[in-house]
């Protein structure tokens, strides 16, 4: 299994040495290179969803919960998301130049047309979600090559709204 943080950045593979239920990190590899790491060992806890972490000799609990391929961690008062990947799998990223809906909602206004040149930061569409207006702005300058929605239409999260090419 390969692991990453926030679905971005390098992929890691992990080796533990195991002794009487205690896992100690023994090797961490990213892009074929061995990465240095602090002294860390883990053991299972009585309470479900919790493990005991000993980091550089200091013991504390981590709460961990899996949601699909995401592993959510609460550790030392902070919350993090790590991702599990099948070895060698590709990252699922959107195609270059497309602008997707950051949340589900309704299109209130379409302010650009196909073929129009836009400048960086120009408002392309206005969406409403949770009764608030959100302006969708051009991430960079370019030409609008496609507009997928009209005013009044409902869009799902992640739906491609507009294509912009250089």
């Amino acid at each position, binding site marked *: 299994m390969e692991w990453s943080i926030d679905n971005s950045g390098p992929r*890691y593979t992990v080796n*533990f040495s195991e002794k009487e239920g205690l896992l100690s*990190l023994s090797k*961490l590899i990213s892009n074929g290179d061995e990465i240095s790491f602090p002294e860390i060992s883990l053991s299972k806890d009585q309470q*479900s969803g919790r493990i005991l972490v000993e980091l550089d000799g200091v013991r504390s609990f981590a*709460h*961990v919960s899996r949601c699909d391929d995401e592993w959510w961690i609460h550790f030392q008062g902070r919350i993090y998301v*790590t991702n*599990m990947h099948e070895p060698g799998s590709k990252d699922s990223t959107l195609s270059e130049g497309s602008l997707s809906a950051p949340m589900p909602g309704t299109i209130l206004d379409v302010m650009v047309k196909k073929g129009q040149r836009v400048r960086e930061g120009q408002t392309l569409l206005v969406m409403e979600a949770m009764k608030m207006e959100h302006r969708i702005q051009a991430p960079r300058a370019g030409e609008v090559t496609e507009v997928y929605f009209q005013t009044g239409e409902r869009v799902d999260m992640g739906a491609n709204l507009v294509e912009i090419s250089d």
Partner: protein
Amino acid sequence: MPDWMINAPTPFNSVLVANRGEIAVRILKAAKESGLKGIAIYSDPDKNSLHVEIADDSVHLPGKSLSETYLNMELIISAAKESGAQAIHPGYGFLSERANFAKLVKDSGLIWIGPSSEAIETMGDKISARRRMIESNVPIIPGEELAIESGSNPLGVLATSAARVGYPLLVKASAGGGGKGMRAVHEPKMLRTEYEAAAREASAAFGDGTVYVERLLTGSRHVEIQVLCDQYGNSIHLNERDCSLQRRHQKVIEEAPSPAVTPEIRNNMGQAAIRAAKAVNYEGAGTVEFLLTSKGEFFFLEMNTRLQVEHPVTELITGIDLVQKQFEVAAGIPLNISQDEIGITGHSIEARIYAEDVSKGFLPAIGKLSMWRPPTTPGVRMDSGFREGDEVTIDFDPMLAKLIVHAPTREAALRRLDTALSEFVVLGVTTNVGFLREVSKSEAFSNGLVTTDYLDNISLEEFKEPEISDSILISIAAGASRFGLDRNLLSVNSEIIDEYSGHSGDPFKTLTRSYP
């Protein structure tokens, strides 16, 4: 009927809560504690929600949209009739500030837990509220109403008024609230865009696109006074709450007392708030919001004719249960508390926990709360409508919980807040918990110097959470995977079944031995 209600002029023994989420839970719990039967209403997505679970009885509202369900006045009245409810508590939001709903409730022979429909109407329309405040000698922000005829081009009138009021200014929906339908305009060329956005938001949210303009007082604090009035003209105030920490006019952290309010300001503002309440013959719990300038002047913003989201901080410093008081006032019981009995004990801070991704411009987040373990420290109160395993959807407001702390001093309350936030385990849905920790520890907030424009004028980089090495997180996740933590999905929130004793929570576990 509960004992305390027996001699009430208009007694009732059951209350329907016309709301959902944390506030419905709050009110239903208060009803139960007071010996009243609590009745919930719910639409399809709320079938298994916490407020339905804790209610003594519940009524299903068929329909998909909010207007078919939680905003459906006729349906809610018939739900009350059907379930035998004698009173209706509206909570906040939804129908709480609809004057015609208050009237309909009373006309249907039910008790309305709130002020009269006339009071709601006068205060709900900002223009009529401003006029009433001028008559009652309550200071208001310099501003102007716009005489825009429907169908005419509003921009000419708007531009003239805007020039008279001066920039920067606020275009505000007359029917607005909660930051909706309100836009700041810093220069004339932005007037049209912001006016149109405000009018559009106001039309969508309140069905009324009327706006007015007022001076934008930058560098001011948002300080509000909690008032409590009975049906016999007795009115007291329960001190102030400071809600200056806002993002785009949405409150983020609230506290009481305000670090900027002296006893003199408190007294003057409190008296102004009582005048405001008396001006509309207010009944029950209400909030008069003011802007407090750096010079110590204050101006009326608006009156919220309902229970406020941040009411718990007032409850903690005064020891008064506002929902219980609302029940009593609605039953016609006199206040029986005088102003000099109202004190301030310690300091209280509330942080609003939202399902939102701060790093993506505070986008609402959705998902399943796969782990939800609130802090259990003394001096910490949490009001929430969520439980572990609940789904956070876009159907409703993204507020997950209110974490409220109480401590002897502001410094101690800040430390308690940070500890409580750090101990709150909420996994599966992105929240603003880390952001709240950083903001509450910022120099400006910890020194009590925040003004309402603070968060809008600062780079969010200032509130970045400390980094942790990838290797630690990767090890924990990979280790948890190796331990099979994902295989306990069915027994979340319960102890692992002990393989020797065969039941969970075996008390002898602490002896490291177990007995059959």
